[in-house]
Structure formats: C-alpha cells, structure tokens
C-alpha cells in the first residue's frame, strides 16, 4: 500500500506529497521518476522523485494540477489515503560527476526535480549555481531547500513579483557570458528547456534536460514516450529521461504532448461535472 503520509500546498494547483514506497525509496537516485496510478480505473502518470528517505521508506512528489488525474489527486487524496500503484524508480539516473561549475535551471514545478540533482552535484564537489523561475511569486516554492543544495541561487519571476523580473534564460545567458560554466541542467516546461538549450549551445556549454513526453508503462514496453535525440528515436522512460538538450528535436516533443488534447479536455470536464454533482 502506498499511503500518503504528508500533503502540503506549495502554491496554486501545486502540491507536495510524501508517500510510503519503501522499495522505491531504497533504490532511488537523482533524475529518476515513478509511475503512479490513483485507483483501479486510473491512468499511469509519470512523476519525478523530488526527494526520498530510504530509512523512513518514503518518497516525495511535487505535482502540478494540469488535468484530470493530477486534479483528482489534489482533490480526493489526503493524508492516510493510499495510491493504487507506485512503480519505480524508473529511468536512468543523472550522471553525477565532478564537472566544476554547474548551473541548475528550474522553471515552475521543475524546481522539485532539479532539487535532488543539485544536491547530488554539490555532494560530488561541484560549485552549484541555481536559477529558479516562475510566472509569479505564488508559484515559487522550496527556495529554502534549493538554497541548501546550491552555492548561489538566482530567482526570477515573469511579473517581477519576486526576485528578478524576467525569464530564467536571462540570468543563464549572463552566467554563460561572464563565468566559466562547465555544465548546465535545465528542467521545466518544454519551451523553457528548449530556449535554455539554445543558449547553452551558443555558448558551447553542454546542457542536460529532462524530457516529459506522454508515457504509458514507463518501462520501455510501448514506445509512447519516444523522442528524437540526435536524429535517433529514443524512449525517454528507459534511455532517458535526461538527454543532451542541444540534440533534442523540441518541436516534435512539444507536438507529441498534444496528442490527446481533446480526450484530456473531455476527461477533465467530465470529472468536474461528477465532482459538482457529488458536492451539490
């Protein structure tokens, strides 16, 4: 049983869950993810391991509510409730090494998955510079946790409500121009990762991104998660999810994310209707 031990609101439509999953917690490494199914009729959705506690046997997930499944998790699952399935850890772990100076860029909920990566990189002796950005202050979270695992932390908001006004790519470009940066990690919405990758490519600095295509099994069995990297078809769930950002075919990735747009909308509307009927 994968029991929710803790649930906390981090911002509008963003929640943190601490879930019992001892086997996953024992094997987890930075960069990996789990596949979660809420109930018997549920979809399998991938979520990155934001943290884990091998001793306590728990994992931490940070979930942004974007559609039916994530919304239902937020509305209907509280402390003490059990998730039907939690499978993992899946995907290849981040390649942690002593690179020198690394920049870890996080956009929006990307803050959660970048956290263990920054921690591992710092643990390996790198000088870690963090950049965290969101649309507005309310959407920022875990800044204290990020400060703990970085040597420097820069924060941006699109509307200037906190930190520097603008997009994460701006401080990234400045760092690339003024400092010796050995490697960059960028995690967030596909568009943000695309522009970070372009900036790094121009500066000639290797960049790693974590791809988030639609998945089904997460174990290499279906090919739903295929992405084009360096002209080759790769399965993000087993070959990734991390890939060299400058080699990713972003337009394809972004297009494939909309494969089930209509069905997703229909599912969300039906869910809202059911909730309305149940509560009225």
């Amino acid at each position, binding site marked *: 049983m994968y029991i929710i031990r803790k649930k906390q609101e981090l911002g509008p439509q963003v929640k943190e869950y601490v879930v019992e999953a001892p*086997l996953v917690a024992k*094997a987890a490494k930075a960069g990996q993810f789990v596949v979660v199914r809420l109930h018997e009729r549920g979809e399998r959705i991938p979520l990155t391991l934001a943290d884990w506690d091998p001793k306590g046997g728990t994992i931490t997930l940070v979930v942004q509510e974007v559609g039916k499944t994530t919304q239902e998790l937020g509305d209907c699952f509280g402390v003490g409730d059990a998730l039907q399935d939690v499978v993992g850890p899946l995907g290849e772990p981040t390649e942690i090494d002593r690179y020198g100076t690394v920049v870890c860029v996080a956009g929006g909920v990307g803050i959660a998955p970048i956290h263990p990566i920054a921690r591992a990189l710092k643990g390996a002796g790198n000088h870690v510079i963090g950049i965290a950005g969101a649309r507005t202050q309310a959407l920022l979270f875990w800044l204290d946790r990020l400060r703990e695992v970085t040597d420097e932390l820069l924060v941006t908001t699109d509307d200037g409500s906190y930190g520097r006004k603008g997009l994460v790519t701006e401080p990234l470009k400045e760092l690339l121009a003024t400092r010796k940066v050995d490697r960059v990690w960028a995690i967030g919405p596909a568009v943000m990762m695309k522009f970070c990758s372009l900036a790094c490519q121009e500066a000639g600095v290797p960049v790693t991104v974590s791809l988030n295509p639609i998945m089904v099994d997460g*174990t290499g*069995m279906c090919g739903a998660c295929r992405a084009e990297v360096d002209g080759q078809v790769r399965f993000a769930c087993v070959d990734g999810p991390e890939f060299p950002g400058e080699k990713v075919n972003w337009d394809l990735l972004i297009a*494939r994310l909309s494969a089930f747009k209509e069905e997703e909308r229909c599912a969300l509307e039906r869910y809202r209707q059911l909730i309305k009927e149940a509560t009225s």
Partner: protein
Amino acid sequence: MIRKTQVPMREQDPRARIHNFDEVPLGYTPEEAMEEAKRCLQCKNAPCVGGCPVGIDIPGFIAHIAKGDFRAAIRLIKESNNLPAICGRVCPQETQCQGVCTLGRKFEPVAIGRLERFVADWERENGVELPRVGRPTGFRVAVVGSGPAGLTCAVDLRRYGHEVTMFEALHEPGGVLMYGIPEFRLPKAIVKAEISSVREMGAEIVTDAVVGKTFTIDDLFADGYHAVFVGSGAGLPRFLGVPGESLIGVYSANEFLTRVNLMRAYRFPEYDTPIKVGRRVAVVGGGNVAMDAARTALRLGAEEVLVLYRRTEAEMPARREEIHHAVEEGVRFEFLVSPVRFLGENGRLSGVECVRMELGAPDESGRRRPVPIEGSEFSLAIDTAVIAIGNRPHPLVPRTTPGLEVSRHGTIVATEDGATSRKGVFAGGDIVTGAATVISAMGAGKRAAAAIHHYLLDSTPPARP
C-alpha cells in the same frame, strides 16, 4: 460414419461483434463437444501428441469427452498444461496438434483446441480442482515476469513444494495475456481466474516491481532466494525506422493494445486512459499482433482498416482463425507492400507512402525475402497507423544482471532446461526464444521448474525454520 468437417462453433455475428469487445467464438455445448470428440480416431501412434509442445495426452482427454466424463478430461489435460482455457483459445493449432492430426490428411482435423477450451470452461463453471501443492522444502524461488512462462513455472514449483514469489513490472499480472491479446479473443476474466488459482496455490505475486530498477537479481539472492526464473518476455516494440514514424497517430502495437487491454481505453472516459482512432487506419505487419490491432481498431470505430503486409497471404504468421475473423469483420489486406514514409500535417499523421514488393530468394527463415520494386511508390490517406512488425526481448534484466550471457539478438542464452550462464538463474519463454507462442513459453516454464527443482535438491538444503 465419421463427420468430415468439424462441428462448427457458434460465433457472434460479424456485424454485431465489431461494435463490442465480447468474445467472438461462443464455445461448444456438451452435446457439440461430445459429437466433435467422437471424430477422433484414437490413433495408436497419436501424432497430435507430438505436435503439442507440452505433450498433452490428446486422444486420452478426447476419449473422456466422448463419454461425457468432462472431469476426467480436464484432469488429464492439467497433468501437462495448467492453462488450458487460454491455450484452447490462442494456440496456433493448425501448425501444432491439429496440423499433424491423422484425420486431417483426408478431412478436417479434430478440433482439439476447441475441445480443450470446452472442458477448461466447463471446469471453471463446475468447480476448479487445484493441483496439489508439494510438501514444503524450505527453498525460495523468485519468478521474474508473470506471463505464461512465469505462471507455469510458478505452478510447477509449488507442486514441488518450493516457496514462490513472482515479481511483475506492470500493475496486473499476466504478461501478454493481459496487455496484448484483446478481450474479444481472450476474455480477461479467464486470465484473472487462472492467476487467482496460482495465488491459491500459495505463490505470492508482487506487482509494480521492475526487476533491474526496483531491485536486481543480485538483490534477490542477497535477500535469500535460492534460485531465480526469468520470464520477462519480448516486450520491446520494433519500429520501421522510416521518416514520420513519430507523428501523432502512429502507435506501436504494444502502445495501442496496452492502452486498450490493460488500461481499458475502450471504456474511456469511464477509465482514465485515452486512445484516439481515426477513420482510416493502417496496420503494418502480418502476425497475430497485427490482426489483434486491426480488429481492435474496427471496434474502436474506425471506418476502414487496412493491413499492410510485405509478403503474401501464404506467408502470414497469424493464426488462420484470426485472419478469417478479420476478413469477416471487414478488415482489408494489401499484400506485398511496405511503408517507406509517413506523411503529416501539423505534426499529425495524414498518410503513408508505400512501395510494392516482390518475393525474391528465400532468407534464413526459409521464407522468400520481399524486395522493393523500384518506382512503384504510392500513397494512401490514413489518420492512424499501428506498427505491428514484432517485438524484441526486454533488455532490462539482461542489462542489470552481471554475468548473464545474452545473444546478439538480445535474448538470454539458456539451455533447453532453462539454465543460463549464471548459477541459480534460469530463463524461458520469449526472453530466450524471441517472440514466440503462449504454449512454447509455458513449455519452457515447465522444463525450467523441473530443472530448478533438481538444482535445489542438489544444493545444500536450507535450515528449517
């Protein structure tokens, strides 16, 4: 006087069944089964037995059916086959038991598969007798993968008295029986009933356990397992490698069928997983998987389903019955063609360009190799494509088990008995042979269970608790 033809099995009308996912053949009544059973000549040499990969005493069980003793018939089958309801439905009988039936030389062969299915279904309705579990030996065996190979191995290990824990990566056990073969061909209730029998025999099944990720085979030995059986199957989908294959609307057969079968997308939005099927669907391939995908597409509302196969009908590896059913349901076939690129509009599939093929010299498999005819390219407008050109061995276990010898095809190298290059690690089914059949995977699971039993008896017995 012997009937020249098989007693026909009632089926759902093709016009009705393309609108539902219910099973197509409806099964024999006891009278029909007895009538069909009486066609068996009870041959002394019984070639049919040699044609069955697990060597069921076919004339024996058929004789019981002819007398109306269905309990005796099912008992006899279960001495060699623990999943008869499944095999009776999905075995390629025409190339196995029925392919060599003496009666088949002059008339239609005895409908062995249908009779096997009949008694297995009869038993499910009249009370299942579980095989007897052996006296506890204290040995613990881990079984990786819960497809037919793993399930069969687990049952036999329990009969020998060993403790068994099965580890399955997906959220439901059953392997291809659950995620691949559709409901209308193999109702999931039947698979679930078989799986609960395995549980009742005391085998523990742990789902959501991806061996190689959640823990490794070495971890299992460290946890005190004395032997491991790997039946992790051939679950890795193959793609054509042609341009446009990542357009929205192009699925691997595994994705298409997993969404529908395992995730029940055909009942979306009641179930959360979506599937999208357009009006014109092309399925690429000619095996059972292709037939399953084509017939599933029809049931999901496609107006036109076209199977593109690069050889001719004679070379199609699918079971004859499935091809026949597909044709009845209105699936169309284009033989001697192969896609060369998928065409798209705004990232979505809009067509496929194909080239015509002709058959050249035979290849290693003895089948004539298709070669493209230059300048014969043509395009078809389609909005969905399903690639069903075969599956490769799942690489996760081989990749994460040091010392396990793997062939250049990615299969685990194992003997007839399932022994691998690693002491205490046995393997069988599709992970060893490459994509094959349910019954051959079961045969491998059975032989491996016997080999594991001998291996354990020869090793130091565990301290009794």
